[in-house]
């Protein structure tokens, strides 16, 4: 079964998902609307942000086409994944592998980065 999975590590707390989701039904942007299917909890001290999903992922109206919910399409870092469990696991492994290669993937999922990436040689001293 397809659903929305979350990689908490990657969430930057922008609330684009929550804000857009709130507007899809009513045309009113209100992140506190009780009908909003996703909420981002902000931890004090700007330390962490945790998205909570209460939604099957069958988006009312998808901004990027019908295959993907709006929140997943718009998530800038790749913290939200839409697919079955198998797919979500493979994405997590892809992220873990990418993090071994470059610090960039602490802040961004590799499938959101448009350029092919090659690890610069450590001893060359230049990227």
């Amino acid at each position: 079964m397809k659903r929305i999975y979350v990689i908490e590590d990657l969430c930057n707390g922008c609330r684009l998902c929550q804000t857009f989701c709130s507007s899809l039904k009513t045309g009113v942007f209100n992140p506190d609307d009780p009908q909003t299917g996703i909420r981002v909890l902000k931890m004090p001290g700007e330390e962490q942000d945790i998205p909570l999903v209460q939604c099957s992922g069958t988006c009312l109206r998808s901004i990027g086409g019908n295959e993907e919910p709006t929140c997943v399409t718009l998530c800038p870092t790749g913290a939200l994944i839409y697919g079955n469990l198998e797919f979500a696991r493979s994405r997590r492994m892809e992220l873990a592998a990418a993090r071994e290669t470059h610090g960039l993937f602490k802040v961004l999922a590799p499938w959101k980065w448009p350029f092919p990436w090659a690890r610069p040689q450590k001893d060359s001293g230049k990227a």
Partner: protein
Amino acid sequence: MIRDNKVQTILRVDLSLGKTRLETLPEEWTAKYIGCRGVHSRLLFDEVPPKADPFGPDNILYIGTGPLEGTPIGMGRLSVACKSPRGTVAEGSCGGFFGPELRRAGIDYIAVSGKADRPVYLWLHDGEAEIRDARHLWGRKVNETDALLREELSDPDVQFRYIGPAGENLVHSSPIFGNRDNSGGRAGCGEVMGSKKLKAIAVRGSGGIRVADYEGFLKAYRNFHRRVAVATSRDVWTPIWGAYGAPVIVRVFNDQGGIMTRNAQEMHWDEEKCNRVSAEPYLEKYVTRAKACFCCPLPACKKQHAIRSGPFEGFRGGNLWAAIPSIFGPLLDNDDLELIIVMAGMCNQYGLDVFHVAYTLAWAMECFEKGIFTQADTDGLDLRFGCPDKAGLVELIRKIALREGFGDLLARGCAGASKIVGKGSEKFALVVKGQELEGIAHRNSYMVALGVAVSEVGPDHTRWYPPHPGHPALLKNEDLASLGVHLDLAKASQGRNPEEKGKVLRWFTMSRAIVESLPSCVFLVRDTLGFDLHPWHDLFQAVTGIQMDYAEFIRAGERVMNLDRAFLVREGFRRADDRPPFRMANEDVPDFGFPKLDAAIFDRMLDDYYQANGWSLKTSIPRQSKLEELGLGDVSRDLEKCGMEVEP
């Protein structure tokens, strides 16, 4: 409460009387000045009396957002404005989450006038305002204030703006902070807030923002998002900026031959040193996670970081931004990234302006090298370039904020301190209109020199700086003409060619004024958005429901620009004040061979700029015909009433 976006509200707070009042602004203002920075420019001109004492009760501090805030286009942008203690306009924009929360509470602008007799903070919730005692917060650092207030109001979603000890102590140029690491209004909004004894503003709203035409909004948002999102933007800078953030610019600028080194005595830094403070080591070693402002489509333009070992072990912070690595790095000849992180973090915690601190330190270091200061003057600190005494420098930043010892001198800023010290040190105080420069070099890019010199708030590159002026691949001169921009892009993007600079600067200043008035983030002026404002025009129409043609939309930006200039000239600034710093105009760069910025060339660019704007070439006062054309006839009459020679 559900807000529509045509009529904007202003909460007037008189701290002397302890009273608050919610008013609405004239409806036509939304079309005429849009909002945010635009409305602030109008309010500043109308309500702050000429020659008012910046620290007196007559100066008004405005904090506000615009009609697009609260929708995903607003990006949490917030404008803060007042009259600067230097006499200029003090206006700055910052991100975070305060703006949307303010709109959801039913308020678009806050105008704080008067002066409280004891420290207070404002607590706003759903259109209601309380002035509360803040004696327990006075003297607290930014991060402590954040934690204490959050505890006190016991709601994780309350948003704050506050000042640190620097603002309380009226330290030169201190800004207003929020979300711990976001700051805005570096020309002294924090100082003015401190002079009013207003420690913080807290806001929580439960309303929503209804856009007038939701289908139109979705269509326009898709168009906008495609141009600025990392994966789809045609602009090669977007992914680099969006994921790496500002630390990339040290190396990029150095490769272009324009990084100010050792207080801009040189313009080239050792390549190895550049690599040490660049984005890659920052990401690998220190970054812990990405952070973003409200609804930003970029993944990681702001980041949280922590230092895990060494002398600064355990130091946490965020937002290594706004050219910080280049001002705490090459400018001080410091290649220790940890020290950069800690110095910037200390500035954030104590509520200081990073540019003030970095340039004043660089100036003090040059004084130290030239023998103007000895260790007896600096409280025993070894203040050579290269930062040999790291702990001492970090301690000095604390002393600047608290105005202790040697810090008290530096707390007056470059210009203030050099006036006291004398001995020729004024010649290397890098200031324009009393305000320190930023991270961009002048002698290799005439557009920067001109833009910084003429800016109404003192140096502020975000008011006009095009991330990549040329865009030759995306836009041709013919395309530009069809957008109403008549200039030769090839010439405009040549660094040391004075041609077209006046015209291109006028365009960027005008278009940025619009983006900041909507508001939206100026760091998203990517792809063709620097010249083609149609996506923003569509979004504005969809959100507000106001139908307006494109040329009229652009004119709103011109109005803002002219209001800022009118405020500045009413305060007594003239053409002679639009000057680059002494060093840029009189000293050649030794290593890279960039000559000084010749006075004749600069005057020519200045003439072009004033000419293009319809301002007097002699005095820089906007001409009456220009003001009338923009529907600002009252401004021209007001200037005449103040005894100024407004040319027809």
